[in-house]
């Protein structure tokens, strides 16, 4: 197995980086940090988030994220060490707008466009009901990648169990347009002529009639009209979905898995990895965020202080703090705090061991980012995380 390239090679060579992982592990921070790293290496980068909460806006200090990329001002980029040829933009995907834009582009005629945009089913399809978000996200990534305004797009995917739906979104769109039920709704006569289709057709029509009865007059009519109006666009859609798929699973895209050190998070990460690997996604690396790490690299956490050692520590406290200070209590508290800290370090290392082993076996790069003393909510914090992800030496930020 050829080992995956190191993170900086990915940042220099890919067009799309997809960050996947469960919620609560700081995936948006990691995505933005990777974006910043690439910009510092002289690339023009866009960080795209499709998370419903405006986290990236918080992290990047950008108040209004619309469906248009917002570029960080030059003086800010200078301060962050981004060279003149580099650039960093961010954007929060507006699902409805993206879908509307697609309809505008592919509708056969202004009448067809208005029919679709005014159809009640469409309004709810595109109205942030679960499901359409993933189509829109992949579509936008493709569009932006095609425009070539950016050298690299970093995609931050939605959290939790829906996170991998977008992988299947183009497939699902194609499957949907080709599905026999859609064909039946569109072309009952044509579909009926197909071999072996009659039985299904009779059954389906009965169920559809029941659905009509259950769902109320007009509901199925709205669906049929929606599909008919869409049909004229479906060639354009189909073609595009194929190209989106080619980009997503092609050599220009790499997937990164972000995880946290909690047992639950590691379990989720393992199942994500299985899904990614069983698809054709090119996994490149695993980043574990918010790990408790020992502050002095190379030193093992020691808490083997015996009574004599504790006595020695108490004496040192008595000397430095003077009379009236309970040096004994301070020594005890130090030992207790150290044990507490060492337990966290050991627990995290133990929890992530299976992921680490998988990374080693599959040749993925492996990075642990320590749990920091404070939250990352500004660009300097992001720059710090960026250097940790890339494994650079800690950089001084002015």
């Amino acid at each position, binding site marked *: 197995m050829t080992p995956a390239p190191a993170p900086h090679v990915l940042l220099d060579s890919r067009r799309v980086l997809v960050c996947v992982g469960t919620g609560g592990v700081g995936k948006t921070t990691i995505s933005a940090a990777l974006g910043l790293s690439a910009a510092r290496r002289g690339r023009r980068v866009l960080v795209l988030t499709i998370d419903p909460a405006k986290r990236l806006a918080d992290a990047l200090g950008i108040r209004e994220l619309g469906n248009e990329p917002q570029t960080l001002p030059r003086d800010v980029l200078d301060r962050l060490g981004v060279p003149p040829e580099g650039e960093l933009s961010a954007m929060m995907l507006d699902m409805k707008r993206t879908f509307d834009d697609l309809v505008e582009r592919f509708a056969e005629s202004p009448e067809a466009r208005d029919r679709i945009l005014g159809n009640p089913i469409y309004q709810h399809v595109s109205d942030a009901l679960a499901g359409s978000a993933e189509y829109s996200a992949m579509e936008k990534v493709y569009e932006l990648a095609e425009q070539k305004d950016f050298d690299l797009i970093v995609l931050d995917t939605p959290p939790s169990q829906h996170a991998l739906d977008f992988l299947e979104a183009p497939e*699902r769109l194609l499957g949907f347009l080709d599905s026999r039920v859609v064909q039946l709704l569109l072309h009952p006569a044509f579909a009926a002529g197909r071999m072996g289709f009659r039985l299904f057709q009779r059954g389906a029509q009965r169920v559809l009639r029941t659905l009509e009865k259950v769902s109320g007059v007009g509901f199925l009519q709205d669906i049929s009209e929606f599909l008919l109006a869409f049909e004229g666009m479906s060639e354009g859609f189909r073609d595009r979905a194929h190209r989106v798929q080619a980009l997503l699973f092609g050599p220009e895209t790499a997937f990164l898995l972000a995880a946290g050190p909690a047992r*639950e998070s590691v379990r989720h990460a393992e199942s994500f990895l299985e899904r990614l690997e069983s698809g054709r996604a090119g996994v490149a690396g695993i980043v574990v965020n918010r790990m408790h790490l020992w502050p002095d690299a190379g030193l093992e956490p020691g808490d083997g202080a*015996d009574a004599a050692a504790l006595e020695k520590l108490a004496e040192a406290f008595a000397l430095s703090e003077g009379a009236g200070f309970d040096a004994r209590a301070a020594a005890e508290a130090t030992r207790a705090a150290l044990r507490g800290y060492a337990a966290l370090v050991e627990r995290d290392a133990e929890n992530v061991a299976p992921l680490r082993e998988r990374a080693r076996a599959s040749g993925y790069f492996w990075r642990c980012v320590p749990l920091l003393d404070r939250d990352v909510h500004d660009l300097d914090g992001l720059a710090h995380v960026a250097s940790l992800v890339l494994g650079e030496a800690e950089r001084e930020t002015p």
Partner: protein
Amino acid sequence: MPLPLPRRGLLERRLVIVTGKGGTGKTSVVAALARAAAQAGRRVLVAETGREEHVPRLLDPATPPVGYAGRELQPGLTAMRIDPFEALAEYLSLQLPVRGLVSRVLRNPGFRQLMEAAPGWRELITLGKVWHMAQGRRPGGAPEFDLLLVDAPATGHGLTFLDVPRVVSSAVRAGPLRRNASLVQQMITDPDSTLLLPVALAEELPARETAELVQRLREEVGVAVDRVVVNAVTPPPFPPGLEDLDERLARLPAELHVPGLPGPRTLARCAAHLRSRHRLNAHYVGAIEAWTGLPICTLPLLPQGVRGPEDLDRLGTALLEPAAAEAA
């Protein structure tokens, strides 16, 4: 002064919908509440809505999956996972007498593709099933379940989940679907019977997201919320009087060598880390209260995670303690 928790306890509802983004420990809260409810003599149903079951394993690591049919895991505690396709099959066969036909059509790949692509129905059918389960009666007419606990999808989708009945009621003009959506809508917006319980962490982004969630709940969805659960709150790392232990460690001579312990600089950094994480934690507990205007129920950090029923009972006590304290 922290806001006082509501007098009415979490167990005195028909339906509690637990929501929170991934990683907040929402599922542990569901399992802990379920155990506490069963121990208090309530007949409780836990309904999970995700693709995988988590609650049964938390209650008993050796238990086989409960599936859509559900199973009583311990006296008074039943768990199920609502799979939308199974719920749809059940719903349609209630409307259509020919069961074989329904299952044949539902198994058809074309029909499944159509349904995979269709938005909204999963949420509606899932809540419809919850409504259906709430109608169950025992012989004699008492409800089959006193309390229904729903483990809702993670926050962003969680609101969509609750908003679908309203959207359907407005999109569909007449007929049984509209009627069913209205019933579900009535159930979840009845402040007397239904409560949404957000679970958050005392960190910046989860805190902000919880504030957004509560605001949207109030403005758009209209489901009652009366407290926020803040999970994994860290205890103070040093005993009283030694709050600045890290600074004192930093004042020790750098060359001090104590056998079995790292040097003072390392000790000071560990201590400083513990102290600042705790300070941050305490700060965001206050921030969540200020941003949402809701009282906070804090749960202790379990350093090893939930290892078994004892840990769930610890969480259960913390969740219900205010009520217990008042009863005493």
